[in-house]
């Protein structure tokens, strides 16, 4: 809990500083925009966090999002599928891809990094091939206006992706922090062998984390497609898997596995988005964007390690 509190304080401080320097930070439009992005990336980061908790990693989600976007556009505008069916299909495909990753990781014991790296390359290529490398869009949205509103609209001025994040966040919080499945996830991440000896079917637990990661990437993919409204198959979702991993790590997930909370992941996502916003608002050259992000993540992780060492030393000494 202290970890989340620390990063939350950092988030608040950052907001105060940005607001003090440039009051435009607090303008309704800006806050709305940030919360929309937090919603989109938050859902993705929760998926990344779940996999990290099992001691794995999922590098494929950015490419899955591109594939989902392309397929969704084709299903809706070219095939004229009913909106609900199209959404179900693409989210289902995303979850199925995650399931395949899970199988490769647990049955064939291939390292998650390799499996999902191949996924990252493969789905990107597939998306570009399917779309003939041409940018896809949704046209006027004939026949699926409700879907567009649901994905990119707002309720009481709160962007819907943020509401989705809250909903998914609460569900996943219960799952992770309160359910038997969540406990198994942590146990498997900390010590898969001991979990297996305790009669837990560790393969299924690990696989399911990849399925959830794929599923959440699929949902994010649908929301993101309507947010950008045009999907360029070669760049849509580029690096997003890294943002998601960064947010999860910043939020307290350990790449060693067995550690992490939903609240931490969401705060981590928010911190990254506020940082992006800060770069824009404070007139920092946008070319420095990545440098700023990298620096802040490094500071966060180093600070966390130093705190951990100090408390560990206190315990021993």
């Amino acid at each position, binding site marked *: 809990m202290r970890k989340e509190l620390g990063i939350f304080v950092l988030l608040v401080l950052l907001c105060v500083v940005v607001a003090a320097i440039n009051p435009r930070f607090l303008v309704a439009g800006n806050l709305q925009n940030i919360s929309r992005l937090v919603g989109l990336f938050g859902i993705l980061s929760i998926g990344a966090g779940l996999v990290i908790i099992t001691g794995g990693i999922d590098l494929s989600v950015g490419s899955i999002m591109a594939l989902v976007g392309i397929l969704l556009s084709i299903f809706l505008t070219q095939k004229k599928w009913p909106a609900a069916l199209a959404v179900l299909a693409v989210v289902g495909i995303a979850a199925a891809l995650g399931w395949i990753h899970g199988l490769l990781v647990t049955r064939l014991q291939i390292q998650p990094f390799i499996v999902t790296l191949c996924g990252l390359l493969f789905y990107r290529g597939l998306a570009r091939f399917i779309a003939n490398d041409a940018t896809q869009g949704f046209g006027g949205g004939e026949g699926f206006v409700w879907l567009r509103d649901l994905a990119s609209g707002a309720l009481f001025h709160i962007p819907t992706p943020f509401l989705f994040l809250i909903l998914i966040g609460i569900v996943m919080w219960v799952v992770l922090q309160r359910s038997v499945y969540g406990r198994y996830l942590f*146990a498997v991440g*900390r*010590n898969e062998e001991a979990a297996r000896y305790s009669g837990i079917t560790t393969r299924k637990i690990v696989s399911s984390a990849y399925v959830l990661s794929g599923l959440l990437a699929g949902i994010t993919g649908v929301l993101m497609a309507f947010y950008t409204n045009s999907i360029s198959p070669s760049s849509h979702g580029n690096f997003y898997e890294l943002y998601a991993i960064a947010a999860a790590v910043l939020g307290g997930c350990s790449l060693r596995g067995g550690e992490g909370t939903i609240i931490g992941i969401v705060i981590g996502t928010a911190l990254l988005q506020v940082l992006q916003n800060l770069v824009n608002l404070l007139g920092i050259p946008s070319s420095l964007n990545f440098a700023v992000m990298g620096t802040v993540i490094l500071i966060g992780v180093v600070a966390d390690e130093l705190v951990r060492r100090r408390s560990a030393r206190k315990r021993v*000494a």
Partner: protein
Amino acid sequence: MASPLLQMKSITKRFQGVTALRAVDFEVFPAEVVALIGENGAGKSTLMKILGGVHQQDEGALNLDGKAVRFHSVSESITRGIGFIHQELNLLDNLDVAGNVFLGREPVWGGPLRLLDHGKMQRETDVHLQRLGLQISSRTYLATLSLAHQQMIEIAKALSLHARILIMDEPTSSLTLTETARLLEVVRQLRSEGVSIIYVSHRLSEISEVADRVVVLRDGANAGALTKAEITRERMVKMMIGRDLDDFYVHPDSAPRPGYFEVKGLRTARFPGREISFSVGQGEILGLAGLVGAGRTEVAQAICGIERPMGGAMVLDQKPVQIQSPRDAVAQGIYLVPDDRRRCGLVIDMSVCENMTLPALRRYATRGIISRRAERKAAEDGVQKLNVKTHSVDMRVGNLSGGNQQKVILAKWLALNPKVLILDEPTRGIDVGAKAEIYELLRALAREGVAIIAISSDMEEVLGISDRVAVMHEGSLTGILERQQLNEEAIMRLAVN
């Protein structure tokens, strides 16, 4: 008697206000084997870590050769001729023997290029290997060596550092009987060469065999010392626990119901050509003896579905059981307490509570959501029932002593009402007090009708706790001894076949 080589006088050490050592005196004379014994938490490790430069004493003095010394670091201790063989070996699997012996102080040539002088490393390593009577090349990779040999490499390393005092912390905890005998021989040989050895162990029979003197610690203070002539098991136990252990092993008081759990023609992946058949009665403790590597752990793992068996059948209470995975075994009420607590028995970074409830978690949950209250209550019951010494059930299980960790593992299975309980080296590295508690618990479980299989390399333990003993040798079952046939010689004969 000669003057002491090392004197630790009135050593006091506190950790965060908790006194770990209280004015402890400890001496080592030249060319002697002094055993340091005491229950876990008695302060043996702390005292040895001060000598090894890991910790520094708060009060008290260290004299080496009559000169006052103080070790601020491990390297200072090493340069003054103290070698510390830790229980967990500090060797690198991916280097050869010579590379390990010279790790961190490799001889180099080629001036500024600093190239490794492999020839020199190997020559010097071979000298020490020969001195220990080892038939191993200095170019053997560590990963291919047995644990016993790896330990010898640690000793060779200490010797190459000109150690005059060798601290051996539980050196035989993972050795077989023959390997143990070999190690004790080396200890004697080193003594005759003038090396002093501090032998820290729970195995009292070894100590009676090899020690010239015994120093006992209890609750961080000196509890007494025994000269060579005074060393007996009873006196050591009494000094360690501060009272008589009137009945260390609890013997059966009712006849078991035979044939409750039967294993027929079991073939393990490691010894696919050997068929193992035996049965355990309800209420019976079957000891499974043999040398390490005889295939006992493999049998336990096959029964419990950890490693899928190549063939065979099992019958529990007259019903055939199919076990393909640990989950199947758990569903049948067949539970394993594995030998490697930290790797297989516990999720070491999780709390006592989370570990205890792990296999039975669904019982404390409705529709998949855990009731924290029910879970906590179950864990608190377990802690109380098994007398686990912990501040709270939220404590990280890794912070408990070995004996208490073992009790947590037992508690997690007891909550599920075992039918068959298989224990692999149940008291390895556990102190005398906790050992007695575990023996008592096993007997109580047997009395309640559990069929128990206990794998043990500790001969005294096998003889003490078993109703019958099955003995294995290189993957086959060489014999089953009834209670009245049980003696050390009979078991050894079957174990070496």
